[in-house]
């Protein structure tokens, strides 16, 4: 039983680590803001879904597990919301400042 739990949590956490790394790489390497947001979204949603249950399997039925569950719920609530708000703000500002297709956001900062 112990072994199965350990293997399961190994798999979950390693997968989570892989997704986190892929997302981070994408956030750095993608060509424009919206694709970068897509990559960052991976690290905000699927990575906690994998990693936190992985830790929970190790913690067992304790208060720590309840706290971890709360962390997961709050992360899943706030992460996509922040992405949504950010994307809509960028879209609003980008469309207003330049007559460009919504996919190509203005890159100038100053």
């Amino acid at each position: 039983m112990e072994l199965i739990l350990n293997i399961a949590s190994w798999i979950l956490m390693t997968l989570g680590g892989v997704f986190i790394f892929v997302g981070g790489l994408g956030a750095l390497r993608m060509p424009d803001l919206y694709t970068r947001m897509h990559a960052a979204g991976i690290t905000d949603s699927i990575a906690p879904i994998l990693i936190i249950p992985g830790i929970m399997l190790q913690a067992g039925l304790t208060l720590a597990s309840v706290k971890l569950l709360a962390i997961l719920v709050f992360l899943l609530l706030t992460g996509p919301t922040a992405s949504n708000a950010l994307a809509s703000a960028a879209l609003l500002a980008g469309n207003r400042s330049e007559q460009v297709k919504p996919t190509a956001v203005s890159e100038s900062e100053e």
Partner: protein
Amino acid sequence: MYYVVTFALIITMALALTRAIIGPSVYDRVLAVNMLGTKTVLLLAVVAFLMGRPDFLDLALAYALINFIGVLAVLEFFRNRAAKQPEEKP
């Protein structure tokens, strides 16, 4: 197994930091800050177990709850700026 995740998290934090420093637009920086915030929550949770003190999850919980405020404040700041001065690009 905690080490694998911690390692991935720290590398990704460095990548997010790079994105925040090179920009180019302010939204990229906000995105990077938000991403770094989520990574910090996960890192704190994992490190709490790594150090064998799972009672310190409160920290990760605090960040999970209030990280959102900073992003919202930034959006409010830029929304007003964009609404009032449309000619100035954010």
